[in-house]
């Protein structure tokens, strides 16, 4: 598709990133537009639908403000993802504290026959993820979406491996019960 985000092209033309980092509004606008679809999708996997757009804004603002600290020694996409994950986690924890005494919203997972598209399937997955506790949700997303093994998550988070495995196991059991089908335990 002609309009596909091409982060590799962004990394090949660091001048655009540098311009945005210097405060060039046009460059910042263009960069934001290119990052927007992927960031929205990642945030939606990690946060409830009602919070996703606000967190997306916060994450992108943080990305723009942090551009001057980016060094092209690693993947720009991974750097952006990392910021998005952290901003999302921080925001969810803040919201959770604020809403500690509020009852959880009822979650309605759409039936499989509602849509027959990738979007519909992912929307079902995100709705099912909405029902998980935050620690389980992040473990599941980091493992299944971002490709980290349980041991890598444990190492990075500093939590015991068995704790991470338990979060993944319980989280996936919950997802299976909502979404159906069978699957072996995560590694």
């Amino acid at each position, binding site marked *: 598709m002609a309009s596909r985000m091409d982060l590799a092209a962004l990394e090949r033309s660091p001048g655009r990133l540098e311009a945005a980092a210097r405060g060039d509004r046009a460059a910042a606008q263009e960069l934001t*537009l290119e990052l927007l679809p992927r960031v929205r999708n990642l945030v939606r996997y990690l946060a409830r639908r009602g919070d996703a757009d606000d967190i997306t804004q916060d994450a992108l603002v943080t990305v723009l403000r942090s551009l001057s600290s980016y060094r092209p020694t690693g993947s720009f996409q991974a750097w952006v993802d990392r910021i998005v994950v952290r901003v999302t986690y921080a925001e969810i924890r803040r919201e959770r504290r604020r809403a500690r005494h509020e009852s959880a919203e009822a979650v309605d997972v759409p039936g499989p026959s509602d849509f027959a598209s990738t979007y519909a399937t992912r929307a079902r997955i995100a709705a099912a993820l909405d029902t998980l506790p935050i620690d389980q949700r992040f473990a599941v997303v980091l493992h299944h979406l971002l490709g980290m093994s349980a041991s890598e998550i444990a190492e990075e988070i500093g939590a015991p491996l068995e704790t991470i495995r338990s979060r993944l196991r319980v989280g996936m059991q919950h997802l299976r019960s909502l979404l159906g089908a069978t699957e072996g335990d995560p590694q």
Partner: protein
Amino acid sequence: MKPEWLDAFSLDDAGGPAAPLGREEAQALASKVVARALPSAGAASYLRHPRTAFLAAGLAGALALVGSVQALRSQEAPCVGATCAESAGASAPPLRVAPPGDGRTTTSAPPRADAPALEAVPIASLPDATANRAAPARRPPSAVETRTASDLLAEANRARRDRDWTRAAALYERVMQSQADESYAATVALASLRLEHLGDARGALVLYEQALAQRPGGALAAQAEAGAARCRRVLAADERARP
């Protein structure tokens, strides 16, 4: 056996799970992000000193009018990059990112030999992206009168974020009445608000159907269809629960 849904559980710039965003919505959202990340010095000074703003009320009114026109023009700019709803993308390359956590976790975790070299950005050191939420800008009366539908939509979103559902609903209704481009997004947003927070599934269904009729196949059509389906399920359940 690997479940079918797990194959779709991937991340790219298209295909969800976030609801598709039209080019106007994407442009407006990107403009808001840039405005928050890179506020202009003049606007910041103006908002921080309301007394001087009142002294320059006449000039401010004129500037606000010009700014409104420019804002509307900017929303009509063509789609740039991959933000259009109709965009599609390939699967993202394998990713390895640092996990979420606080600053302690981030700084104490040893680097992995196989990890890509990423610039360490502890969350504690990042700029506070939520700071602008806590201190809404004070505007002089003349600026209030010149608020655009985009301003109202942003205000409605802030009210929703603050869980002030009634005020958010009233603001979304004002955006709808403006007949501006934003009225479509406001209709869907108000429908969602009524369904999820105001207990008005019947009113939400009317709005979802109104949005679908307003823009059949529009950028928010999938969201509206899903919302309408949820409304019907809620209404059916209510009907069954009646004695």
